[in-house]
């Protein structure tokens, strides 16, 4: 049994279903990457896993326990961390406060972790007293990822963490994600910078119209010319 397993999810925003039997699983310490065209339901799937969308069908288990009925908040306490695709910072709080909020449920001393985040994103460190709403697009993204890292989750879910960040930061970010995964944390992420992402992925999902089209290791997907042409930009 995988650490996270979301099986056969169906549901949407009221009217027609967006998810049509989508299944996602991640093992401990694994990196899972979801790719797919725009509007395929990737973000929706992430929200569903996180309990922000009620499912009509399907189940989500974490560490063997069924969490389908839990609220997002309870899932946070179970060790899930999430960076949404948009609106992922607190705009009128400073960068530092944003990071502190990431550690809201932690009772221990998290100053080390903040320092680690600053080391990872030096550009953001310079702005720690500035309101996050005043940052550039890429800087916001870095703060958002930093906030999630602060939680020290056991499952980290990232919805397009690299959108808008510069190549050098993207590389750093992927390096860091590998590092994080090596400490036993499971990673589930959506990526449009798909080639780079699949390169580090243990498992890759190609989602189309709310259903799994291809599921394989990252390398295998990269090697499939059909997948490359239709989903990865050649």
């Amino acid at each position, binding site marked *: 049994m995988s650490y996270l397993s979301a099986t056969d999810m169906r549901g949407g925003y009221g009217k027609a279903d967006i998810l049509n039997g989508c299944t996602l699983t991640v093992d401990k310490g694994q990196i899972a990457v979801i790719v797919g065209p725009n509007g395929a339901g990737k973000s929706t799937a992430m929200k569903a896993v*996180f309990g*922000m969308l009620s499912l009509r069908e399907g189940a989500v288990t974490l560490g063997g326990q069924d969490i389908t009925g839990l609220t*997002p*908040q309870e899932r*946070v*306490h179970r060790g899930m*961390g*999430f960076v*949404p695709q948009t*609106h*992922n*910072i*607190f*705009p*009128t*709080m400073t960068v530092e*406060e944003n990071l*502190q*909020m*990431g550690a*809201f*449920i932690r009772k221990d001393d998290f100053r080390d972790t903040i320092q680690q985040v600053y080391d990872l994103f030096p550009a953001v460190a310079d702005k720690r007293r500035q309101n996050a709403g005043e940052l550039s697009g890429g800087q916001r993204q870095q703060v958002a990822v930093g*906030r999630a890292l602060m*939680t020290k989750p056991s499952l980290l879910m990232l919805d397009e963490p690299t959108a808008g960040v510069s190549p050098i930061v993207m590389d750093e970010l992927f390096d860091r994600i590998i590092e994080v995964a090596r400490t036993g944390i499971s990673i589930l992420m959506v990526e449009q910078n798909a080639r780079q992402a699949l390169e580090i992925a243990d498992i890759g999902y190609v989602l189309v119209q709310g259903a799994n089209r291809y599921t394989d290791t990252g390398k295998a997907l990269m090697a499939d010319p059909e997948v490359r042409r239709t989903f990865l930009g050649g």
Partner: protein
Amino acid sequence: MDILNALVALLNFVLIPAAAYGAQLALGALGVTLIYGILRFSNFAHGDTMAFGTALVILVTWGLQALGISLGPLPTALLALPIGIALCSGFVLGTDRVVYRFYRKKRSEPIILVMASVGVMFIMNGLTRLVIGVDEIRFDDGARFLVTVQQFRAWSGLTEGLALRVSQVLTLVVTALACWALFRFLNHSRAGKAMRAYSDNEDLALLSGIDPERVVRLTWIIATALAVTAGTLYGLDKSFKAFNYFQILLPIFAASIVGGLGNPLGAVAGGFIVAFSEVAITYPWKKVAGYLGIESDGLLQLLSTEYKFAVSFVILIVVLLFRPTGLFRGKSV
């Protein structure tokens, strides 16, 4: 030339009353600004929360007085205040549970919440009158003055007198404390930061493990405490009359806006701006000028008091023209 007399006249008639009034507005505005900052709507029921809370405080005060308990020179109402706050918070949390929560869950636009608060306002309005009636009530006991006009004249030998009431000093002190405490709380405590986070981005706050309902409850309790305190001080200083508390809502809104919505410092600054523009601009300078050796037939009054409300609004508008989101850069949705 008689600078001292001029100064005392100004102090007695302009500075002290305006400062006390400003502080009362500021306390009210703190509550409004807090609700706006965190729950993101202008709470029309705030004035009536003040009235309702004060009515409860008065009832408790009467009870204490009947039991023979007093605070010596300070008004007994101060002793009743915590109880009043507790009771009123209970009621307000009830309204949140019954009314506002529904719209919050539905993610209704702020204007809908504003309208719901108008509904709550009507209800509290009626309840206050049922509980305590419509008459003017005075409930200040203890000493009324720190310094009376006669005492001051005897002491200083000036023609002008100076009066300082206990309630005025009390208001100023309490406002300063409340503002400081609120500022510290919001910016430095965990719960305060959680409140700001919630106000910034509700979903993300949820994702960070913040319990939104707790934040909301806390906000209501603090706002109610501020409202009841403001209402009680206002009632001690003037007198309690249910109708007046709706009227004071407009200057309170004005104060919180001109200072910058969602900003406690702004609320306080706004309160003083409104109060001083009302009192100072319509002040006839004749007497003061007389002390300074400038005799005049006219009153030297810029505008008559009929326009005091209008003047304070003109000043607000001018401030907003140069600082579109208030003096202290408030929120805007």
